[in-house]
């Protein structure tokens, strides 16, 4: 299973992503374990998701193509950065967002955000795909094409049991 997390990072790097920051979630624990262990990624562990969005914006200005990892609870924290920084200045970023609370089966604090994840991203005008190992390459290629064409954030939503170990 750790193969799936490494493959995920390899696919991101193949599509030009070269800066990683964020806040962890158990649903992509395998990915952050690799990011933390391998200095090659230069992973910056952020204190809050909106702070990670700011760091990613700075990295973009410095010439990088950033990834921001977060739990979907962090979408709420990040909303102002998303709409009043990235989207108005045309600052691209790939958001890797876990999907806690999908189908209502989760701890109470995740149920409401889990329930509104898709309409929330649609409302914020963030193009997204739900990660499926079968279609990973195609989805990352398609999202990255959108990111480059629009210069705006796009999201890859990570469900349970895909990148945990």
């Amino acid at each position, binding site marked *: 299973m750790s193969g799936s997390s490494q493959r995920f990072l390899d696919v991101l790097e193949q599509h030009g992503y070269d800066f990683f920051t964020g806040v962890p979630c158990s649903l992509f624990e395998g990915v952050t374990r690799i990011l933390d262990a391998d200095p090659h990624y*230069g992973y910056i562990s*952020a204190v809050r998701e909106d*702070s990670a*969005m700011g*760091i990613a914006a700075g990295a973009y*200005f*410095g*010439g990088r193509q950033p990834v921001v990892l977060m739990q979907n609870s962090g979408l709420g924290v990040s909303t102002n950065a998303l709409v009043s920084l990235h989207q108005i200045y045309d600052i691209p970023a790939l958001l890797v967002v876990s999907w806690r609370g999908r189908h209502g089966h989760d701890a109470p604090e995740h149920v409401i955000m889990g329930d509104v994840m898709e309409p929330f991203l649609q409302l914020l005008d963030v193009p997204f795909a739900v990660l499926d190992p079968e279609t990973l390459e195609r989805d990352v290629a398609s999202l990255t094409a959108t990111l480059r064409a629009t210069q705006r954030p796009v999201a890859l939503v990570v469900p349970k049991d895909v990148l945990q170990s």
Partner: protein
Amino acid sequence: MTRAEAVARVADRLGPDALTIVCNGMLGRELYAHRDAPSTFYMIGSMGLASSIGLGVALVQPSRTVVVFDGDGNVLMNFGGLASVAAARPGNFHHIVFDNAAHGSTGNQRTISDRVPLEEVARAAGYRRTARVGNADALRSALASWFDAPGPSMLLVTVDRRNIAGIGRVEPEPPAIAARFRAACTR
């Protein structure tokens, strides 16, 4: 000392290669009115995040001097940003905080920086150098060599609450500000 005067003094000390990020509010408008440059990123929304943006730039462009013009309200809104800077410890990062203990652009409502010394918080977090100055002579003296020594540093400048009546907004549209700033960062 007015904030506009302090902003001008700091801006005039920056080398031609420096990259500047200025927080939202009156600060950015005052810097823009004094001296506009493509190497300045004017943040108009995302209050609190100027230091985080500056950290991102500093980490991926380690040979460039990065200077964040920030306000007390902004620093307080993203206190964790100080911890992130201190933990990453970029030697090219300099934080200049113009502290009027008020939210200038919403009507000068009090912040809490009169009771929470921000430069002491930065020092406790792990900034390499910090100082507080409160008049033009002390600011001039501090600036003489401030950017020559490694950061992360915080120079806190206490300023009064006067705003410039009728000061203009930053004119370029946000995407234009971002594009020219990115070009300045990567040239």
